[in-house]
């Protein structure tokens, strides 16, 4: 049986615990990295992590991109969406197609 984890600062993620997701409040990047590593070894198939933290650990993020599980999904924190999540999707398009053909209308 797989589980869903949420990593981020307490204010951004406390609501998810009411939905039955496992929340892991962290205070700094080192802590977040450690928890992310630990969770990916356990039975966590989806890990939501606030943009603020995932943005600061690109190496780890790239590493898990290649694996089918876990899926690491950036979510906005209380500061609002910084555009990291949507930029990521943009990057996939660039990687696959060679140039960005989906988001052109935005800019």
């Amino acid at each position, binding site marked *: *049986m*797989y*589980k*869903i984890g949420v990593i981020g600062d*307490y*204010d*951004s993620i*406390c*609501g*998810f*615990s*009411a*939905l*039955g*997701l496992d929340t892991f409040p962290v205070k700094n990047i080192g802590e977040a990295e450690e928890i992310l590593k630990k969770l990916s070894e356990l039975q966590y*198939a*989806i890990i*939501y992590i606030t943009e603020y933290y995932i943005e600061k650990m690109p190496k780890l993020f790239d590493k898990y*991109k*290649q694996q*089918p*599980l876990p*899926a690491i*999904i950036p*979510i*906005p*924190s*209380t500061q*609002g*969406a910084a555009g990291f*999540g*949507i930029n*990521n*999707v943009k990057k*996939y*398009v660039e*990687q*696959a*197609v060679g140039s960005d053909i*989906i*988001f052109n209308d935005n800019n």
Partner: protein
Amino acid sequence: MAQLNVNPTRMELTRLKKSLSTALRGHKLLKDKRDELMRQFLDIVRENKVLREKVEKKIAEANQYFAVAASLMKREVMSSALLMPKQGVDLQVGTKNIMSVDIPTFNVTTKTNSKNDIYSYGYVNTSGDMDKAISILSETLDDMLKLAEYEKSAQLLASEIEKTRRRVNALEYVMIPNYEDTIRYISMKLDESERSNTTRLLKIKDIMVAQNIEEKKQTEQY
């Protein structure tokens, strides 16, 4: 013109021709694979974009309500209200195969059936904004799962497309021209040795005929 370092023999030629036809076939297959992957990828990534925008908006909305709730309630009350969740989720992970890329599919079953039965606290001590925030989040959960599925698929497909594209290009612009050049080189070399052999035979024949005539002349003299 780049050619492989091989001996210009007939055996090598047959071997290379076989390799070339395999390379051509592989190139066609990989190109088809790339096109199909690309089609699937574009569908997925469009959906991904829509979902992400929706989820981000919903979460931001929920966060607003949470901020209001947090300002009205004591922090301890809030965390104790959320301490023991009533709702639980079981996540089932299946796999879907798109052009030999394994893509996870997520299926979730919740512990409580009713959408209204997720509040793990009495309503007395908590602010109504918190209820609102949680109800928004619980509505978003389905979309969040879908987002996870689509985003992971997009990740995996993007790297697979990149790999396939490299292979197609390597075949198209390096391997196949190399094979063709080498095959041309060998067949020309073989033709050349064929021709030189023929001329040699002609020359030898001329010499032998001349000798024969010389011998006949000598026997007739006697």
